[in-house]
């Protein structure tokens, strides 16, 4: 079921297998029947590692979400009830969760009476001293038979994507200066190096990149002599701190996958969509009941069609879908030409594949329709136009009419902030008067409480008072804005934002060819230190390049680690570079979290009050309020 992970140059199925084995080792420490209590946040990630049947094989009979109060386990030998010998908590090391765990343990124990149960807790991805202390304070530490850790850090999303899915990471690092997650990042990179060999070259840009690079080098010193001897499979590590490129995630992604994420939100490669579009039209029963549950679809490259269209500009998806439809129906027509038994047999063997392709085509046609409903909206187009103006550096120093109008119409705050931050970033800050005007507009319209959120955005640098103007220089030198994009058959990464090339990916591109030497000037303009380190590889492990290697073998592999998040559009751009015929690099992507402008800003904002009625999902409100 994980075949889609092994498609890349670096086999991530191995990574998944290791994670699975470690999980089972944890489970097998608890002998007997088990019930797992999940931290809600972890169920998604675990779905990528192990399926329920596997857990069942290891005597996991029940699973519960972590909630305060007694676990719904019937103690003793009530009829039909299974006897659970072990309760296993799988939680993130967060103090607030410890109270729930403690409560659950206490109440369950009371209810269990003389029936003996063992309690275990595994922290994901690391044990935390503070949590253990908290459990001690709460008086349940002694009750726990096992206090362990399960180092599930990077989750394999696809054959070239790993994500840690730590949504708080960016906020903790930049607002609270709590670099705990950066240590996890360093640890994860150490694990990658243990599995796929030491990475000879490390490059990076940004404060956190420097921090992570330093930590890795330090950890390697600590490891000295104890490393697994593996031939390096990854040639370069590129660390990109999100603050290096604040602009990209603010822009609306225009690739197929990116748009699905913008509109519906993709979580752990799953997306939930309104079910209406997916009702199969059944001729026999004209009136079928409409399903109310949202339709859940897994988006990864095991779906051949999706693998092709995910990274395309949305405008190129329609033509691709219809091309695919034609091919399919042509294949289907072949049955008429099948005259001999052999022909028919051949056709029949192809049939399951055709049917699967047909189903996938139907699914993606429906999704594309749903997406198109949104992209056709006037508000979508207007917003896009404003974004493009900003990216082109047009009138970024004035109060923008569209933003003003959005505020006046009380459009969702996040949408407004996204545009506002974009203006600020492309103008390197506002004139004080304009800045105050915007802030006033926002606090008066959306409420005074947002003054704290605005302050947060300011700390990160998304909003600020004007400083040195650098954006236009960077834009020109790195060709961030490209005219005349060919969305159907792109020849530059800028197609992912229909004319804007993500700065982060441009950095990767320049690093591969011709090297960062050539853009030193620009690198100096981008905030944060530049990192360049070399790690010595034992001579015996060096790659031996022989003459006559095929092209693909000569392509080097770069692991790009986005610290603070990466968007689907950026991934698409990197894949585009990997797939170039004469491309010097193949890219493996890792990140602390897959983000889009919406959930990213949301994570930075302060949650002071219960969200008011207007702050729903970006997509659902943009549409409904205007319709």
């Amino acid at each position: 079921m994980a075949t889609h992970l092994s498609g890349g140059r670096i086999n991530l199925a191995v990574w998944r297998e290791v994670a699975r084995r470690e999980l089972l080792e944890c489970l097998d420490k608890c002998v007997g029947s088990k019930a797992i209590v999940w931290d809600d946040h972890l169920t998604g990630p675990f779905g990528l590692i192990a399926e329920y049947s596997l857990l069942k094989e290891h005597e996991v009979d029940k699973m519960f979400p972590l909630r305060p109060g007694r676990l719904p386990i019937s103690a003793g030998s009530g009829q039909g009830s299974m006897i659970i010998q072990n309760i296993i908590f799988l939680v993130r090391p967060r103090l607030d969760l410890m109270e729930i765990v403690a409560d659950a343990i206490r109440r369950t124990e009371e209810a269990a009476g003389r029936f003996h149960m063992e309690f275990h807790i595994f922290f994901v991805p690391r044990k935390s001293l503070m949590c253990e202390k908290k459990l001690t304070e709460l008086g349940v530490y002694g009750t726990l038979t096992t206090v362990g850790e399960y180092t599930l850090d990077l989750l394999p999303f696809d054959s070239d994507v790993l994500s840690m899915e730590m949504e708080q990471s960016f906020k903790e690092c930049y607002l609270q200066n709590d670099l705990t997650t950066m240590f996890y990042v360093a640890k994860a990179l150490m694990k990658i190096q243990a599995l796929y060999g030491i990475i000879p070259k490390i490059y990076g840009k940004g404060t956190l990149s420097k921090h992570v690079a330093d930590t890795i080098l330090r950890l390697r010193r600590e490891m000295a002599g104890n490393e697994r001897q593996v031939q390096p499979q990854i040639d370069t590590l590129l660390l990109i701190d999100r603050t290096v490129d604040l602009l990209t995630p603010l822009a609306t992604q225009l690739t197929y996958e990116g748009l699905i994420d913008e509109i519906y939100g993709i979580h752990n490669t799953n997306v939930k969509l309104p079910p209406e579009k997916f009702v199969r039209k059944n001729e026999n029963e004209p009136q079928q009941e409409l399903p109310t549950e949202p339709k859940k679809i897994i988006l990864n490259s095991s779906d051949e069609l999706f693998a092709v269209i995910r990274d395309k500009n949305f405008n190129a998806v329609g033509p691709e879908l219809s091309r695919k439809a034609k091919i399919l129906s042509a294949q289907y027509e072949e049955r008429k030409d099948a005259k001999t038994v052999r022909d028919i047999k051949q056709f029949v063997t192809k049939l399951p594949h055709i049917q699967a392709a047909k189903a996938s085509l139907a699914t993606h046609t429906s999704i594309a329709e749903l997406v198109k409903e949104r992209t056709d909206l006037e508000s979508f187009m207007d917003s896009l136009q404003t974004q493009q103006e900003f990216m082109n550096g047009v009138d970024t120093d004035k109060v923008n009419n569209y933003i003003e109008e959005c505020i006046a119409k009380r459009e969702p705050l996040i949408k407004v902030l996204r545009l506002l931050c974009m203006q600020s970033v492309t103008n390197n800050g506002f004139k004080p008067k304009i800045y105050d005007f915007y802030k006033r507009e926002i606090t008066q319209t959306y409420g005074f409480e947002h003054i704290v959120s605005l302050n947060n955005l300011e700390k990160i640098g998304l909003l600020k008072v004007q400083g040195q103007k650098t954006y236009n220089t960077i834009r020109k030198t790195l060709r961030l804005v490209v005219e005349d994009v060919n969305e159907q058959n792109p020849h530059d990464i800028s197609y992912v934002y229909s004319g804007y090339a993500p700065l982060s990916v441009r950095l990767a591109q320049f690093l591969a060819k011709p090297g960062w030497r050539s853009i030193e000037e620009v690198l100096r303009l981008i905030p944060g230190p530049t990192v360049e380190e070399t790690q010595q590889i034992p001579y015996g492990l060096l790659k031996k390049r022989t003459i006559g290697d095929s092209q693909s073998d000569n392509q080097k592999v770069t692991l790009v680690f986005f610290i603070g998040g990466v968007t689907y559009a950026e991934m698409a751009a990197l894949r585009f570079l990997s797939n170039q015929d004469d491309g010097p690099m193949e890219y493996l992507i890792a990140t602390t979290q897959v983000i889009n402008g919406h959930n990213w800003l949301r994570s930075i904002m302060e949650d002071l009050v219960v969200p008011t009625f207007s702050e729903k999902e970006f997509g659902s409100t943009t549409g409904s309020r205007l319709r």
Partner: protein
Amino acid sequence: MAHITGGWNPLGEVFFRKLELYSMDRSWQELAKLEKFKVAAAPYGGPIALVRDESKMTHIPGSTRPTVYIYTSSGREISQFRWNSGKLLDMGWSSSEDLLCIQEDGTVLVYDIFSNFKRNFSLGQEARDTKVLECKIFQGYVGTGLAVLTGSYRFFVINNIEEGHSRKMVEVPDLDSPPSSWCIICRDRHTQILLAKEKRLFLVDYTDVHEQTLTTSSPVNAFIEMAVSFDNRLLALFGDTGLLWTGSSDLQKVYCEFDTKSQKRPKQLAWCGTGAVVGYWENLLLIIGPHKDWISFNMKSEAYLIPEADGLRIVDSATHELLQRVPVVVEEIFNVGSIAPGALLFEASKEFQKKSQKADDYIRMVMAKGDLPLAVDQCIEAAGCEYEPATQRILLKAASFGKCFLTNMSPEKFVNMCKMLRVINSVREYHVGMPLSYEELKRLTLPVLIDRLILRRQWCLAMHISRFLKLPEAEGESRILGHWACYKVLQKHIADETIAQDIKSKLDTAPGIAYSEIAKKASECGRTQLAVKLLEYEPRAAEQVPLLMTMRDQKVALTKAIESGDTDLVYLVLLQMQETMPMGDFLMSLRNQPMAQSLFMQFCREQKPTLLTDLYYQNDDFQEMANCQVADSFKITDFQQKTDKLNGAHDNYTKARNEFAAKATEEQNKLLGYQRRLEDQYKVAYIGKSLHDTMHELISKNMSKLAEQLRKEFKVPDKRFWWLKIDALANSGDWLELERFAKSKKSPIGYEPFVEVCMNHHNKYEANKYIGRVAAENKVKMYIKMGSLEEAADLAFQQRSEDDLNQVMRQCLGNRALTAKIQGMKAQMYSKK
């Protein structure tokens, strides 16, 4: 050279041989009159401990306390110490080569081979009260175990002396005198005691006792001696009639019953590997095979038998010998007249060295059958079984000779054997004195061998071996150096400075040294300064920091923890600091450690919010304090407190020079005041709403006047106010008012919004009223919005705007007539161009 088979003794179909391992060192020869001593020897060629056996001596009252001597297998003294505790009952060795001395009162004292006392433990109250009669040390499934028989005729067993405590075995019924004999059997992770009460046999464990039935061919009154083989699978019982019974240790299978014709109890009964049982009487060593075959040797002096996995070592005052079954490969190669491939190859090689053409004949014989690879393997294997380097060499030569005729044979086996033999020969060396066999080394594994060399302080040899075998540094070199350093810090006569330098210079190049371990050792023996110096070299923060903390060096610990990037470590230090320091000092000490401070704040944020404000206050961080107060103001429901908080926030924002925020806070307070009055007046909840929402609600409720007042008060820009008002009016369906508002003065936002809000409520009729006033360039768009596609198309055509036409066309999917019309228009436009 005498022929190798010269020393072979046939036992049935197989051969046994006795090899001399060492002729013992003079110091041993002078001391070791074994009849006067208690002897304990460790398996795997381990050390031998001797102590004078008082029971064998005429007791002289007030005699001096006995001395315990520890020797290597080659008879070199390692150490000795004066025994000055209670009555020593027995001695034995653990698997980690610790000497266990069992006292009569059940106390066990543990010494290392250099006679350093390590620890002691007790076997329990009952043993203390009733005294230990007998004891046996055994290798269990978890480690070294110990079993004792107490004066109350009960057995107590410890399965692993490293941990755990003694457990009582089930009592054997009617056992009112010591059993005739007993032994321990460890099978399938299960420890059992087999004991003989006269001729009745009992198998005892923690939970059960079973009587075993054993019928022997000739009657026996009692089993007076028993022995279990090294692998615990075979058992030998000796009856008082001279009958020797051998069988499986579960007593299910009988291999042989042999009449020794000696009714005297043998001094020792032991298995030689798994092939034969050896009984030792005064002057006689009797080897009994499984088919009643036997060999006997005369013994010149008192000897001691040490069973090994693949043989039996016999040590007496002059020599140390190994008795073993001649290994099969060796037999096949050297046995007279053998035509095994290995034997032929060996012959060929010999002839080749003599430059005789017979070599060719022999090699052809082997190759004809295609047995050459097997022959080479046999020679390699046989070399591993030999003790004499010369023999090893000729066998390896033969193997190497045979290899020449093979094109694709992997050299790995050969090379490995050469390497291993070099290692084995070097540890068998007289001054090291570890007579290991190749088989035993394989069981022991290389890391354990290195361990044992470390234990003997054979640093240099251990280093050479690990370098020679290219062991990973962590297992080899670094570990050895680490231990060496630990030993070094104990040398108190050398100054801290010198030791630190010595250690550093030796260990500098070795990666993965656990400096923390060395520092810990130093700290344990009171050399804190040295420990601190050594810790400097420790690269692993996780090891370094806790130790620094135990040495109360919190400041350094904190710095190191921060450097490591491991936030958990930082918390570890912070918590200790918080506990040991007054709060004020603690908070102050965080001031110049921003990272630690942030982490502590993070902790406070969740656990101790009040402390957080203290910290902000301490740092003069007015902005954050104000933010906190703002946050608080939203959590509080009491109105007065709310405004107080905001006033506080206002002050702090002012101090932080954040004029905007200060003003905004002031306005918020003002707004709250208004909202409160409104609530009092109209009994509708306003507090918590934004200015926008408040005005919106007021207008919807037909209280435009009040809204107007707020607008003035808070200086709401015109544009926004218009949007707000239009939306609110449309929302409440007050179309009349909307129209009036539109006409009140010129709209600052144009008239598109009017159309929009009407259409949001699907009121096309109202929308129509405003379309006329919409700016020309937006009209088409507005028509589209209203659904008036015809008009939109006409207008676009009029304005000659192709873009607009296209836009309209996109909207009229399914409307064929209109699509056609637009296409017509477009065509017309083109033609005119």
